[in-house]
């Protein structure tokens, strides 16, 4: 159990540290606190698995340091780092039984037999593997094999962190839900630091108390699910999290006003010192824009279709050339092809070159 600090950590697979554009992971400095449940969220190829493999020591960083409780462990091998990791596809030892598979990481570290038995029994119970303990692991289904892999990751009580690399990819949706809740329960029970890599926002938001969003080799935001929803630090976060994603619209911003397609939208804060020459956009989640009857002073939009999600309806619209989504208030019936849009000024964010700009009161 440990706090993990990444200091200016970066990696390039080509090994060309001089060329920052070749980095699969761009320099990052951040802290993972002891006992946290983290999700590392991002699309494939964003560098999340690289970051995971750097922490576990499977990959050696091109630059930067990794500290466990303040001690630099960058030069240490995977074995010495005291990290557990579960991979995307089940890894089991063919010749061993389920029980022997679970005991393997402990046996290799010289844990006394009595202790191993207790721990294996405990983990097997948590994962519903108790009836299979004496069976050959190769005879089980892919689901069960992945549970063994999970079990081998969780069986060590003294690890600095358990890393999961999209561990539920091969699992059926029904069981996926169960296993995810189980992992969450295990996190509470075992008091382990867990880092969970996924490209699925539901998985990330339900598992983690802190979600780290990655995009194009960079950590773009780290925060609670609520923070990511309310105040995306990067347009990518806005767009990637939430369904439908945040509306990102090019705008001219001056003071407390944004101009979109010739219409004016009021802002809650004042933006006087925007970087010169930057691409300015405003971002607002569909949940905070209401569709209304067209009226003077409102941005008018063409309605393309209405998505009824049961609890809530979203209108898909077009403002000029830009696609837009907005909430249809309950009981409101859409008048025709054209609608007006009402913005909640406190929820409209301003982005310069994709990065959030904090305005002044």
């Amino acid at each position, binding site marked *: 159990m440990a706090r993990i600090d990444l200091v200016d950590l970066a990696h390039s697979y080509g090994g060309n540290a001089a060329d920052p554009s070749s980095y699969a992971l761009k320099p990052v400095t951040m802290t993972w606190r002891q006992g946290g449940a983290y999700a590392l969220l991002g699309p494939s190829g964003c560098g999340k698995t690289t970051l995971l493999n750097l922490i576990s020591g499977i990959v050696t960083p091109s630059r930067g340091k990794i500290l466990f409780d303040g001690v630099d462990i960058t030069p240490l091998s995977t074995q010495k780092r005291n990290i557990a990791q579960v991979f995307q596809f089940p890894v089991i*030892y063919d010749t061993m039984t389920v029980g022997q598979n679970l005991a393997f990481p402990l046996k290799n570290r010289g844990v006394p037999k009595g202790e191993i038995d207790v721990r294996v029994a405990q983990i097997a119970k948590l994962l519903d593997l108790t009836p299979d303990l004496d069976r050959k692991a190769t*005879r089980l289904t892919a689901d069960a094999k992945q549970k063994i892999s999970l079990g081998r990751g969780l069986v060590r009580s003294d690890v600095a962190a358990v890393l999961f690399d999209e561990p539920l990819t091969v699992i059926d949706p029904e069981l996926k839900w169960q296993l995810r809740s189980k992992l969450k329960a295990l996190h509470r029970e075992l008091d382990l630091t867990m880092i969970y890599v996924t490209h699925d926002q539901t998985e990330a938001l339900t598992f983690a108390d802190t979600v780290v969003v990655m995009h194009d080799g960079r950590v773009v935001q780290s925060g609670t699910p609520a923070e990511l929803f309310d105040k995306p630090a990067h347009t990518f976060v806005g767009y990637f999290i939430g369904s439908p994603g945040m509306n990102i619209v090019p705008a001219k911003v001056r003071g407390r006003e944004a101009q979109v397609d010739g219409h004016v939208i009021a802002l809650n804060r004042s933006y006087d010192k925007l970087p010169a020459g930057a691409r300015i956009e405003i971002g607002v989640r569909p949940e905070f824009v209401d569709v209304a009857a067209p009226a003077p002073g409102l941005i008018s939009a063409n309605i393309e279709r209405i998505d009824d999600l049961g609890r809530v309806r979203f209108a898909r619209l077009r403002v000029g050339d830009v696609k837009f989504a907005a909430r249809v208030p309950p009981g409101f019936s859409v008048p025709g092809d054209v609608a007006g849009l009402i913005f909640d000024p406190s929820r409209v964010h301003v982005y310069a070159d994709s990065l959030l700009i904090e305005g002044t009161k």
Partner: protein
Amino acid sequence: MKKTINNRAWFLIAPVVIVVLFSALLPVMTVVNYSVQDAMAENHFFWNGDTWFRDLLDPSTEIGARFSGALERNLIFSFVILLIEVPLGIALSLALPRRGWAVGPSLVLIALPMLIPWNVVGTMWQIFARADIGLFGAALNGLGLNYNDTQDPVSAWFTILVIDVWHWTPLVILLSYAGLRAIPDAFYQAARIDAASRWAVFLKIELPKLQRVLVLAILLRFMQSFMIYTEPFVVTGGGPGNATTFLSIDLVKIALGQVDLGSAAAMSLVYYLITISLCWIFFTAMSQLDMLKEA
């Protein structure tokens, strides 16, 4: 993996059966025919029953003694080369580079001995083992060993073993290397996370995953070494005496040298049956192992 029952699969098999039967059926029947007959005069045969077989399997007869001698030599030979080539081949396949420029050239060099026609292999070693013009023979004699592969039985045996190891370890290396390359990286990474030793990685990951390629390697090596003919024929001619007279060599001596077709045919059938039985035992043991795993 579950298979479905489908007897129309026979249509897919038919071409193979036809091609193989064409080459296999008539010759086998001819041999069976010879084995139960005796020739009085030219092209005049009469029924001879199991006489050839009884003589062959009775070590007190001349032919029986020859056969049991050759069989024993051949079994020892096959056993010894398997014992050398399989571990050596696996060890070398582990040492081969997995990536980089050296992979291609190493593989080509390793495979080269297998791609030389067998009588050329014989000729090559015939020269190489000579004390006067061959490096191998000269070097061994230079070390003070009394080495002469055509005069001394120990030298002859040693030479044939070295040739076979040189010639066929590459097969084990290539198959084992290909099997190793098929193991996903995640297995090695998981082993590092689990703090498995190098030896444990070999025993618990690599060896089990190599099972099928090794079965192919061992069976092929056993069959071929049990039928070895060309190399000893060219290099030692089966001698000195009959120190390196293996089954195939003896058979050709009897059939073509002494034109004793009945004995030769009976001998080849027994020989064939022994090969098949040994392979069948191995094959069954292996498929039992597979079934146990997949059940």
